[in-house]
């Protein structure tokens, strides 16, 4: 048998254990260095054979997660000696169109700084992109963004955001077919608010009555009457000194009770006034609700709007929103990945079999950020024979995840001077200023002589082929406020009739529609201006164009009178229902006002009357105080 700390007896000998002197054991097992060296060698071999492939996959995965859209890299070369990374065949899918690439680059070469790598920070001294193409078609659709990822959530929220901005489709229903609508009172906002207001008036009235009862006036008045009656005809001589003193004290106490009751009455008067004011406010709010109900009832009729701004929003709202939606996506990305400030930042940990946990960054002033691209130069050549053909040059500086450390905003410029005889240019510049605590981003893109999009006009069997023209978008975001403008000028627009039904290409449904189409087809030069302003979560979109102004004028001339009649009819119907439902609330408000005023006036009068009598009694009693040697009134 062996004991702890001793060498065990030899295996299988069966001999009795012998206590041996403790052997001297070294701390280090030198022969363990051999397998350690073998492991290190294996790591070097794996890096040399598979390192770049593993790194490529990691970069693809990280970039896909970062941008929220598929990023593919065909080849990666890393040179540790001069700290350069070269990517070949890079493509970034368009998050809004899975069959398109936003950007493709034949070669991306980055020169890294060495020391920050020791701190696990990527500082790119320069980045050069060559052989770039935009808007290329993919052979296979890109993988959708992970459903729970930030990008997918942003896309979803932007869809909701865009839906809120969309205007109803322009309607060109013939006015002569407008019929009376049957309004359900429950659908009207005024009726709902009137019912709520009636309930509020009831409860205020109940509260007023309860408060009046709570005044407890009767005991005070009874007490005052009793004192007055008791002292009626009593003189100080008859009462004597003590009796007079007692009587004066009683009168004074009762007067104090009356004064206290009067204060309660005044408080009730104020409450009654407030209650009446609340009900009056409710009545004013009913007027606003009534205006909303006019619009609602009008929408049931599907009357064609003849107001320019409405037509502009209905005809060109969608195409404007598409432009702004893309800008908003990248602005949200910038806000997420380039947050202002230097507080510790938490993000989900790496995916692994074990729980991912969360990884925290601890930025430190005057240190390297996690990522910084000091300067990137992009040479972009677009081939073919279209308006986009040409050479582009882009510069981007100070792209970082921690702008507070870099203390310089991210700036980028992109310009193109076209070749091949096409007079076209694109200029873009922008600043992402997240250095301070407040985000301040601005972007301006001007495109001249480029091919503008073609799109259908909602609600009409016609399509606008804008052809070559000019487009400009300017966006300014400060904190949570946005001001953006998109202008588009198509001097040679072509209109193409489309089918409203599979069998009838370009068929016109009614006279109004025919008129609208005639006006539209008469326009050669189309100018659109869309303004997006306000809180970034709930901005206001205002779209106007020369077409909607012209269309509005023509529609007003032709159908204005009929439309006015139809609107008057709708208003009358709303008024009938609303007046019927709001009459009781108005009566209740009047009754509340009258009841409050009456009760207060009555209480004041009764208390004043009793107080007057008490004052008279007190005066009579105190008139003899000199004779009887009573103290003063104080």
């Amino acid at each position: 048998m062996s004991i702890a700390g001793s060498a065990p007896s030899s295996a299988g000998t069966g001999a009795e254990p012998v206590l041996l002197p403790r052997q001297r054991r070294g701390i280090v097992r030198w022969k363990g260095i051999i397998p350690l060296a073998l492991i290190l060698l294996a790591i070097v071999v794996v890096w040399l054979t598979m390192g770049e492939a593993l790194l490529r996959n990691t970069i693809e995965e990280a970039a896909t997660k970062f941008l929220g859209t598929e990023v593919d890299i065909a080849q990666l070369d890393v040179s540790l000696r001069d700290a350069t990374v070269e990517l070949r065949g890079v493509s970034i899918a368009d998050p809004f169109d899975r069959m398109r690439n936003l950007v493709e680059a034949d070669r991306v070469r980055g020169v890294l700084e060495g020391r920050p790598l020791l701190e696990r920070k990527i500082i790119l001294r320069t980045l050069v992109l060559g052989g770039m193409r935009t808007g290329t078609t993919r052979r296979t659709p890109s993988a959708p963004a992970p459903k729970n990822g930030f990008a997918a959530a942003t896309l979803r929220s932007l869809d909701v955001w865009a839906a809120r901005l969309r205007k109803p489709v322009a309607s060109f229903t013939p006015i002569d077919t407008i019929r009376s609508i049957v309004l359900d009172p429950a659908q009207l906002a005024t009726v709902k608010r009137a019912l709520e207001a009636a309930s509020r008036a009831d409860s205020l009235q109940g509260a007023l009555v309860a408060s009046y009862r709570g005044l407890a006036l009767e005991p005070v008045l009874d007490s005052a009457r009793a004192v007055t009656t008791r002292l009626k005809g009593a003189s100080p001589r008859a009462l004597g000194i003590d009796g007079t003193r007692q009587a004066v004290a009683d009168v004074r106490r009762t007067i104090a009770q009356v004064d206290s009751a009067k204060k309660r009455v005044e408080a009730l008067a104020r409450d009654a006034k407030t209650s009446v004011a609340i009900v009056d406010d409710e009545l004013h709010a009913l007027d606003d609700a009534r205006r909303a109900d006019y619009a609602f009832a009008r929408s049931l009729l599907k009357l064609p709007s003849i107001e320019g701004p409405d037509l502009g929003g209905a005809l060109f709202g969608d195409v404007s929103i598409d432009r702004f939606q893309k800008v908003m996506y990248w602005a949200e990305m910038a806000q997420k990945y380039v947050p202002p400030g230097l507080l510790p930042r938490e993000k989900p940990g790496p995916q692994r079999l074990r729980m991912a946990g969360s990884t925290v960054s601890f930025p430190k002033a005057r240190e390297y950020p996690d990522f910084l691209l000091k300067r990137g130069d992009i040479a972009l050549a677009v081939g073919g024979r279209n308006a986009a053909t040409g050479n582009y040059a882009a510069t981007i500086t100070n792209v970082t995840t921690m702008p507070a450390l870099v203390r310089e905003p991210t700036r980028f410029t992109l310009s193109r001077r076209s070749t091949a005889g096409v007079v076209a240019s694109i200029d873009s510049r922008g600043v992402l200023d997240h250095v301070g605590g407040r985000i301040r981003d601005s972007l301006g893109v001007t495109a001249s002589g480029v091919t503008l999009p073609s799109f259908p006009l909602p609600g009409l069997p016609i399509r606008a082929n804008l052809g070559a023209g000019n487009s400009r978008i300017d966006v300014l975001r400060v904190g949570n406020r946005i001001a953006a403008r998109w202008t588009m000028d198509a001097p040679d627009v072509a209109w193409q009739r489309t089918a409203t039904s599979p069998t009838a290409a370009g068929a016109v449904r009614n006279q109004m529609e025919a008129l609208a189409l005639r006006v539209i087809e008469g326009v050669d030069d189309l100018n659109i201006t869309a303004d997006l302003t306000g809180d970034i979560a709930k901005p206001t979109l205002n779209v106007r164009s020369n077409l909607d102004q012209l269309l509005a004028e023509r529609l007003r001339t032709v159908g204005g009178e009929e439309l006015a009649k139809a609107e008057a009819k709708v208003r009358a119907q709303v008024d009938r229902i609303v007046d019927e439902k709001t009459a009781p609330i108005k009566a209740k408000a009047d009754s509340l006002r009258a009841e409050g005023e009456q009760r207060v006036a009555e209480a004041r009068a009764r208390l004043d009357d009793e107080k007057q009598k008490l004052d008279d009694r007190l005066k009579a009693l105190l008139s003899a105080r000199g004779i009887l040697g009573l103290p003063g009134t104080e």
Partner: protein
Amino acid sequence: MLALLKTLQSLIKELHSDGTPLQIALGAALGAALGLTPIANVHNAIVLALLLILNVSFGAGMLAWGLFVPLGFILDPVFDRVGHMLLMETPALTPLWTSWFNTPLVPYTNFNNTVVLGSVVGWLVLFIPIVLLVKFLVVRYRATYGERVRKSKFYRAVTASQAYNVYRWFSPE
């Protein structure tokens, strides 16, 4: 099944190795790090190197790794909570983390991940208890069943295998 047999073989060999109970216990405590903490991290490379070059039981380390892996998975939410508390909810430590994670090489430890930091702290806290417990169990085993097992045919079969010779390379001196 094979893994189970290997584990059993490893256990028997360790218990009857030339190592002292303390060497076996230290090996087990170091091996626990591999099981308790997420494996692909720099600190585990250091632990593995220590298991190889320090005169502790390598086999006990490998055995402890296998035994502590399920425990690591189970305790992950606790480690996450501990890590979160240390990284995010203890303002007094923020300057320390800020200094550490802006120091060359330290960010590669991944100690700024809640689960990694929490599990490493958990392992360090458990290190001494594991050493004491394993040492106690080895002493008890050797004093009670050790000799009977050593004389059994099963033990002779295990020690006669070729793998045993390789294993002896890493057994404590």
